[in-house]
């Protein structure tokens, strides 16, 4: 049975979709079967970031409504055999998702894939709650600024109360992924420091992704940053985060500071 990861944040524009695609591609490069599911019905973007926008025939709403079978809707990545995308519908809205439908789709995906990555929409409404509902692990994407941190805090509260795991009295495993981190601005005090964010959110750190033009470039060419330029700093950060998700204990390096020996070793291996 695969692991279900929800990538969530509360606030929009912090990098959920970028991170979902990048983590998906990074895990798939470990030869593990990965499905990335877009829950942002009505505002789908994941297909663009993964370069599959012209290959979408059926989507998650079709699968939920029974118009299409799951294998028909899944799109295999052209570069990685083990990476699949289940796109969202662009012409519908979040109400098209039903709780039973989502449960059925997730259960089926878990049978075939090692990882099911749910890209949550922004907000705390139906789309976001359904994306987190069946998750085993949550990746909370946060930018180092106060409004993003507060929204993430709200989402962590919901992960601890509104998910199936929480309702069964279990603890949801939560990880913080700090994105768009600029060490110079953090040093000047224009941004929250890593320690401040960790102190407020008090969940373990999965990784720090530096602010970089490489992320934008990758999006524009329709490739996850971990496929477009594997040697770039954000790609390295996502590779490390993926290894931590898979259970490896490697220390987190703060971008701008000297990179640890593990980062160097891994950098060579991935290239």
């Amino acid at each position, binding site marked *: 049975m695969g692991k279900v990861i929800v990538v969530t944040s509360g606030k929009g524009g912090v990098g959920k979709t970028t991170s979902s695609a990048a983590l998906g591609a990074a895990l798939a490069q470990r030869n593990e079967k990965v499905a990335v599911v877009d829950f942002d019905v009505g505002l789908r973007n994941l297909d663009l970031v993964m370069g599959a926008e012209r290959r979408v025939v059926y989507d998650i709403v079709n699968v939920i409504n029974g118009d299409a079978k799951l294998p028909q809707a899944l799109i295999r990545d052209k570069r990685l055999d083990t990476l699949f995308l289940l796109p969202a519908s662009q012409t519908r809205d979040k109400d098209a998702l039903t709780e039973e439908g989502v449960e059925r789709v997730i259960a089926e995906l878990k049978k075939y894939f090692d990882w099911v990555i749910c890209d949550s929409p922004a907000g705390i409404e139906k789309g976001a709650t359904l994306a987190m509902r069946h998750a085993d692990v949550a990746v909370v994407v946060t930018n180092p600024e106060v409004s993003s941190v507060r929204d993430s*805090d709200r989402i962590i509260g919901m992960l601890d109360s509104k998910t199936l795991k929480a309702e069964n009295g279990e603890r949801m495993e939560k990880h913080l992924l700090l994105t768009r981190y600029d060490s110079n601005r953090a040093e000047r005090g224009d941004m929250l420091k890593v320690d401040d964010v960790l102190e407020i959110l008090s969940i373990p750190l999965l990784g720090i992704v530096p602010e970089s033009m490489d992320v934008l470039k990758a999006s524009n060419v329709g490739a996850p940053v971990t496929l477009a330029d594997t040697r770039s700093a954000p790609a390295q950060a996502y590779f490390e985060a993926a290894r931590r998700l898979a259970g490896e204990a490697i220390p987190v390096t703060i971008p701008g500071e000297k990179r640890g020996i593990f980062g160097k070793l891994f950098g060579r291996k991935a290239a």
Partner: protein
Amino acid sequence: MTKVLTDARSIRIKGRSFLAVVLSPDLPLDQWLVRLDDLASRSAGFFLDRPVVLDVSELSIKKAELKQLIDDLAERKVRIMGIEGARPSQLTPEMPPAMKGGKPAADVEVTARESDPEAEAESEAVEQTPIKQVEAQQIRAITQSLVIDEPVRSGQSIIFPEGDITIVGSVASGAEVIAGGSIHIYGTLRGRAMAGSIGNTNARIFCRRLEAELIAIDGIYKMAEDMDSSLRGHAVQLSLEGDTIMADILF
């Protein structure tokens, strides 16, 4: 000659209140004693370890009769700690002291356990005799507490009108904690904390680090901008003095 006080320390005399059981016998005394025996047989050990006051204000008896009554009670293992409502002429120095100024409390219920005579073993009966003491219950209610072992997240609200709240973790911006008693936060208070919400002026708020948006005690509140900026970031205790919230930096 004046006495020279060599030790400057004075003896501290404190007041304390206990809840006593009051027995009010009526005439004729022998019949009352029979009813007392009956009560004692149904609830063995009820008078053991319990302060008992004898109220004789409704009883017109002589000194000798009162002495006999005390002896009769002693025979039944009921020890009298004081006598209420007795005339000075009724009392002798050997008798328990006269007591005044008692405040009425709720009736003490003695439940019958006739159905199961074997279970009336003394020790068990003492344990199981349910006693309804309104005052004691109120005291217990106030000391009730709720302990939360994780941070209180933005958007969450913890409401506990029954007593104190202790949070081992931080209270996030946009979260609120409302307690009938005091609030103890072993972390940073960034959200709102409202103590003494059911009208408890003695309630306090403690936090390891004050960054609060709003604090309130017994309905009197202070916004972040009204707070002394020197308190920010410190371990602080907040209490109410009259209609003013007082803050002390701890440590």
